[in-house]
């Protein structure tokens, strides 16, 4: 059974532009909807707060691993750790990797997340709750709202 996720997306923007959007903490915060306290530095913890409406009370924390310019950006985190009552720190985090490749039209971004074998089954239930709670729904609404020119999503 597969214990990793892979999402690929073609972006019509140069690798350098995508790299900046991923690794400049203000730019990252814009599209990921998180307000970060400071820049990303390998080996350090990046902290912030979710800016997504309805989730502003949530802290966001990742451990930056690697930053190989215009090639690889990676961090570990606790995926969608949204219950403020729960301390997730003793769970094994998953590894998120963004890999960039130059293409004829821009950039191919390959996102992988791995290490789900250590996730407690409790988290699965939580994910269902969130799902029903409408995070996904809301994201879709926003997406519909802002999406005019984007399409071409390679799952």
């Amino acid at each position, binding site marked *: 059974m597969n214990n990793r996720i892979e999402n690929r997306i073609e972006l019509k923007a140069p690798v350098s532009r995508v790299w900046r959007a991923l690794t400049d903490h203000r730019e990252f915060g814009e*599209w990921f909807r998180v307000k970060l306290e400071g820049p990303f530095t390998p080996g350090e913890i990046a902290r912030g707060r979710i800016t997504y409406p309805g989730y502003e009370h949530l802290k966001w924390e990742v451990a930056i691993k690697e930053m190989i310019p215009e090639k690889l950006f990676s961090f570990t985190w606790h995926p*969608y750790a949204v219950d*403020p009552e729960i301390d997730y720190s003793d769970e094994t985090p998953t590894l998120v990797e963004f890999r960039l490749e130059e293409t004829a039209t821009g950039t191919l971004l390959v996102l992988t997340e791995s290490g789900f*074998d250590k996730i407690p089954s409790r988290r699965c239930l939580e994910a269902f709750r969130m799902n029903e709670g409408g995070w996904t729904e809301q994201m879709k609404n926003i997406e519909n709202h802002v999406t005019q020119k984007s399409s071409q999503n390679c799952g």
Partner: protein
Amino acid sequence: MSRKNHHRTAARRPAQAPIFAALGDQTRLSLVTKLSDGQARSITQLADGYKLTRQAITKHLRVLEKAGLVRSIHSGRESLFDFDPKPVKEIKDYLNFVSEQWEQSLQQLKLFVEE
């Protein structure tokens, strides 16, 4: 705005589901595949076709049982085993969920860099 984190001890948490570990073995994976048709089987029936002893098969079945992937049912003097699809479905749904969240985020990124 500071919320107090409730430090729950690992012991009070539900046990982790070692599903991937349980399935990361050729014999166990094929036992699960065999059982996934929904039919309950005895150890003798399950051991059929393997070059392993009944004890070895039993050991594998216990690992699967511990992970919640199979259940043992007592039928007379014999133990029968059947497949419990729930944990696999939960994990699958969870991975789908996380993947979907990323898809949404990457769409935002796309809008952001292409504008």
